[in-house]
């Protein structure tokens, strides 16, 4: 049983509230996107992870998006950007009205993140397998300049099909990047089926361990355990990877573990049903 002191409890509640708000905005944006549809399932599987990063773990400032010591963030599985945009809204970087422009003509909020200094989007992503390498460059920069910041990279389990992920996995330990914190969103699905059906990379834990990463595996929706994990990270010269076991489409009965929601259209009917589920759940 987990025992929390009061302040811990407050922190946990804050993160949970953040996560609920992110979920609501994912739903709203998916609905706004209309027939252009959106990557709903993969955004929901990272919602709790991105919430703890933005609400708690990362060193960020509401009114300053570009201070040297800020923690860096890369959404390497860029298609999950609904969760990213919603999190950036929660910390005040993206305005409510801007969220409504998701996937609309001439919008800054495309279906994959596009670098935008004003909105606090640091990198363009979408083509899988590229973000982790950039993270290594950032983490090396921190070491070379002696400016201590952490680099957080969210990678998908499907994304681990890409060879470039393993080029990066091989490289990070060489540079002793204990400031590089990778979270693998292991929701067991990819675009057109389960990992087992399409391409299962096998035992992720052992694979990363063999490259000399510090590896942990926990429930990616358990805020208490996620917090404990992030609190426990040490400067021991090893890059860290968390394999977060998640549920694709987490939070809504119709989308959980239902891969039709990898990229799908949010109709009015489903939207209203989802809203009710959120109300009842909160």
């Amino acid at each position, binding site marked *: 049983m987990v025992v929390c002191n009061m302040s811990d409890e407050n922190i946990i509640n804050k993160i949970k509230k953040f996560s609920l708000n992110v979920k609501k905005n994912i739903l709203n944006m998916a609905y706004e996107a209309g027939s252009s549809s959106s990557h709903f399932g993969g955004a929901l599987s990272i919602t709790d992870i991105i919430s703890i990063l933005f609400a708690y773990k990362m060193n960020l400032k509401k009114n300053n998006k570009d201070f040297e010591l800020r923690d860096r963030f890369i959404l390497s599985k860029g298609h999950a950007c609904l969760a990213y945009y919603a999190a950036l809204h929660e910390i005040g970087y993206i305005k409510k009205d801007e969220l409504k422009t998701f996937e609309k003509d001439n919008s800054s909020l495309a279906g994959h993140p*596009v*670098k935008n200094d004003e909105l606090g989007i*640091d*990198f*363009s*992503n*979408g*083509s899988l*397998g*590229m*973000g*982790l*390498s*950039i*993270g*290594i*460059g*950032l*983490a*090396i*920069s*921190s070491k*070379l*300049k002696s400016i201590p910041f952490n680099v957080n990279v969210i990678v998908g389990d499907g994304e681990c099909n890409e*060879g*470039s992920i393993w*080029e*990066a996995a*091989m*490289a990070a330990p060489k*540079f002793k990047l204990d400031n590089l914190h990778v979270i693998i969103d292991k929701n067991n699905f990819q675009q057109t089926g389960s990992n087992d059906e399409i391409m299962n990379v096998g035992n992720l834990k052992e694979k990363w361990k063999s490259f000399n990463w510090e590896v942990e595996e926990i429930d990616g929706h358990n805020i208490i355990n996620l917090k404990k994990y992030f609190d426990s990270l040490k400067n021991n010269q090893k890059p860290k990877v968390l394999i977060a076991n998640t549920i694709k489409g987490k939070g809504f009965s119709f989308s959980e573990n239902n891969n039709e929601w990898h990229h799908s259209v949010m109709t009015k009917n489903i939207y209203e049903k989802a809203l009710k589920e959120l109300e009842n759940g909160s």
Partner: protein
Amino acid sequence: MEVNSKNIKLWSTLGPRASLGLGILDLAKYQKDLIVVTCDVSTSAGLDRFRKSLPNQYIDLGIAEQNMIGVATGLANEKFKVITTTFAPFQTMRCCEQIKVNLGYMQEKITMIGLASGLVLGNLGFTHCCIEDLGVLRSIPNLCIISPADSLETLKAIESSIHNKNSCYIRVTGGTNNPIIYKEDYKFEIGKAIRLKEGNDITIFGSGAVLNDCMIVSEHLKSKKISAGVINVHTIKPIDKEIIVDASEKSKLIVTVEEHNKIGGLGSSVSEVISSIKNAPRQLTLGINDSYTKSGSYKFLKNYYRLVSEKILEDILKMLNE
């Protein structure tokens, strides 16, 4: 490094690869924010001394080019000046999409040096020759592409690229004892082609080491009472439209010569400009005829693809007599 006739001769003897190693070492001594990122090619890039003397500014990622561009991007984002280098096919095509997304789309700024491009590694076969890099990279927005004529120009291109706004690709051609095009110091400016020889009957546009052959051709044509101007198009992108328009207004034939596929490189770039000019002259595009062949020495392959002065001359005279 001082540009004087002694050094110019030294760099020519060493060839562009060893020279660029010396040049980068010299730049990095004074610019502590300059980082070299490579893929297990320090010897081939003339960077062994660099690797030993400035280990904190040297990052070797092993044989993994996609990761190289990604790591360079992260460093560039944190305001480091970054040079990446490996053999031209691996520097451009193996990591092409990283170049597109990180440098083109996201506009992070690095300098890439493609070693031994063109035909110089012919003995190793066409995995190592590179006749496609210009065509592949030219279609990516926000990239600058430079093809230096000799060792000195390679050094100048690197220094200019570091201070250029957009990411640059420097295509290094030619081997050791490569011919000297510039015997003394001169002004190098990205995007501004340089007239090497006056002459207006025809104009020859060349880039890279093959410019030396173009200069010889011009001399031969002179003896046949044909005045042939030679222009060094060291920057393939952005192309110098002004000098092309000017030459096409004065010349009855435009010739382009490149150690690259005829598709997608200098010839294509020049024709894209000329095609919009009213009453433009004909263009003779010389280069590699969209084919691979058996392996062989640099000399053998240049001869096979008709990129030596006597064959370039033949092709020009044939076109003039048609």
